[in-house]
């Protein structure tokens, strides 16, 4: 895997949102210095609780937010500029599927119009070809031609997400960001979508950045897992290694909180690290290690020293004072 070409490289990325309180300006540190990469054909699972900065990361990569500092390299080229300054070709090569297909598809447009838009913008099909291409895209997500003139409200939530995926595929991207594509869906529908995404990945040689809060889903989908907490990466490892030997106390807390359905899985959970406390506000990040308010293993130094990322195994990185 590591011999594969790096497609996306994020270096020291920071994104602060200013908030004005009286004459003071505070900053929400949504992302506070993260480094990771996505290699060709890989699925990187970016996992975190709400407020951890995982969606902000996605929006910075896709260009919806300008970055505060740091660089984003896509196929070796620096793309850490605003979306308006990005070349059209780059926008074609990179697509995103959002969480809620109820709001990401225009309710006033038919499926035909929804998928037609990216084809028009990028000049990928014209005239008679257009319809053929749209039907072909629908087929690739296993939706029948009869759906062309339906409106999003007329089809189920799972099917809507399939349309959103077809729209993202329309421009033949090589890299796709999936921002919690199944979190509003039932498991039986989720299973269909996930299997579809895996199939499409093989067919079109796609690389995915998969954003989610569901670790057990990542066990089955991702090749590598990145855990975020309060705008920083806590742990990063290839999936197999990650689930065999999770190192960071936060990761262990996350894993032990997951409700499971078999005894086998029960044994895979780390010894019950009791979940305590809540994620602090990103405006008032605690000094030292940001996890110190909830960490059962916190030492005095954790309240002063912010840990640095250390390598603990092949491709396995942890940011915790216990390993420094």
């Amino acid at each position, binding site marked *: 895997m590591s011999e594969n070409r790096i497609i996306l490289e994020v270096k020291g990325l920071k994104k602060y949102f200013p908030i004005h309180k009286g004459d003071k300006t505070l900053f929400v540190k949504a992302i506070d210095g993260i480094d990771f990469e996505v290699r060709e054909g890989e699925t990187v699972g970016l996992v975190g*609780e709400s407020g951890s900065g995982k969606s902000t990361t996605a929006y910075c990569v896709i260009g919806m937010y300008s970055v505060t500092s740091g660089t984003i390299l896509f196929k070796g080229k620096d793309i850490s500029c605003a979306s308006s300054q990005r070349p059209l070709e780059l926008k074609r090569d990179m697509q995103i599927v959002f969480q809620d297909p109820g709001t990401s598809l225009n309710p006033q447009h038919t499926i035909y119009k929804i998928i037609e838009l990216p084809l028009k913008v990028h000049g990928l099909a014209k005239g008679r070809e257009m319809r053929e291409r749209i039907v072909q895209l629908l087929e690739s997500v296993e939706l029948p031609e009869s759906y062309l003139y339906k409106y999003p409200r007329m089809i189920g939530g799972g099917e809507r997400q399939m349309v959103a995926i077809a729209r993202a595929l329309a421009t033949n991207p090589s890299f796709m960001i999936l921002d919690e594509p199944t979190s509003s869906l039932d498991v039986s529908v989720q299973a269909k979508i996930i299997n579809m995404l895996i199939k499409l990945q093989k067919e079109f040689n796609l690389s995915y950045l998969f954003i989610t809060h569901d670790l057990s889903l990542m066990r*089955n989908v991702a090749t590598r897992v990145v855990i975020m907490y309060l705008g920083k990466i806590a742990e990063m490892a290839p999936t197999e290694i990650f689930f065999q030997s999770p190192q960071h106390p936060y990761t262990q807390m996350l894993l032990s909180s997951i409700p499971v*359905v078999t005894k086998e899985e029960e044994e895979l959970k780390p010894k019950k690290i009791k979940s305590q406390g809540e994620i602090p506000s990103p405006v008032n990040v605690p000094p030292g290690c940001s996890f110190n308010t909830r960490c059962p293993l916190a030492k005095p130094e954790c309240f002063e020293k912010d840990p640095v990322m250390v390598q603990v195994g092949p491709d396995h990185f942890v940011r915790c004072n216990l390993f420094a």
Partner: protein
Amino acid sequence: MGDLVKIQDLYVWFRVYGGYMKVLNGVNFSVGKGEKVSIVGETGCGKTTTMKTILRILSSQAHIPKGEVLFEEKDILKMKEGEIKRLRGRGVAMIFQDPMASLNPVFTIGDQLAAVISHSGVQDLDKEKIRQLSINALKEVKLPDPERILGSYPFQMSGGMRQRICIAMALATERALIIADEPTTNLDVTIQDQILALLRELVTKRGNSLILITHSLGIARENADRIYVMYAGNMVEVSNNEELFCNPLHPYTEMLLGCVPKLSGGGIAEGIAGRIPDYLNPPPGCRFEPRCPYATDRCREEKPDFVDVGNGHKVACFKYN
């Protein structure tokens, strides 16, 4: 163990333009005293409708052609308005999915807790006593600094804290039955774990009965003694906790279990083809028949009964009778 709630052959229809949505289709369900029961099912299968029937808070379009809902052997559907109010105030408490929507945004937590306590039928309540009971309720759900919280508004709390407040309200006074309707769906997994552990602990300590509605088989497994699986307005399977996961009988249960991503890996099953039937024109026989890989002619015509296959494990499928 006597049954606290027993639902027998319940049908609930909703009047809409173009006919009736035949949602509940002969539901059989029971909860014993002090028992923790979970109902698992996907969106739109009728879990919440069943619970709303217990509290009689169905919308005005609802029509109940048939069925009984017994609470301590009295039929809720035949109760007078006064009796049902007493039941809501003292017998049953419900915790809803979205605490932001179930708490009133313009009243303080203290006001809202006081309203619950003053309707509970406890005698000789004065302001000071209500305040004391409110503080105790908040302490019990392990909220720090309860005096300050009494004066706060819901928007000043985090999602996890709001759900703790809802639990405090449900448990502020003596209730026989707590219904928790997807209490942790909007919460992160670490907070979910905390809230469920708290709910489990309090309900066990007080010996209440609990009905936990969820769409997650994992949550049901970790919190209930007995689990009902619901599909399209029917209970399709019920069994003791472990048994359901080792030996799922109904094809729907089996397929649903396959769809759950496992921590042990091994990929995810293909999903279940098709979708939940249209309630305006549901299939006449078994409602799972259009999606079932084992369907026969009999399934298309006849509705399977909910039969016991031993040890209280019941299943509604012709494969087993």
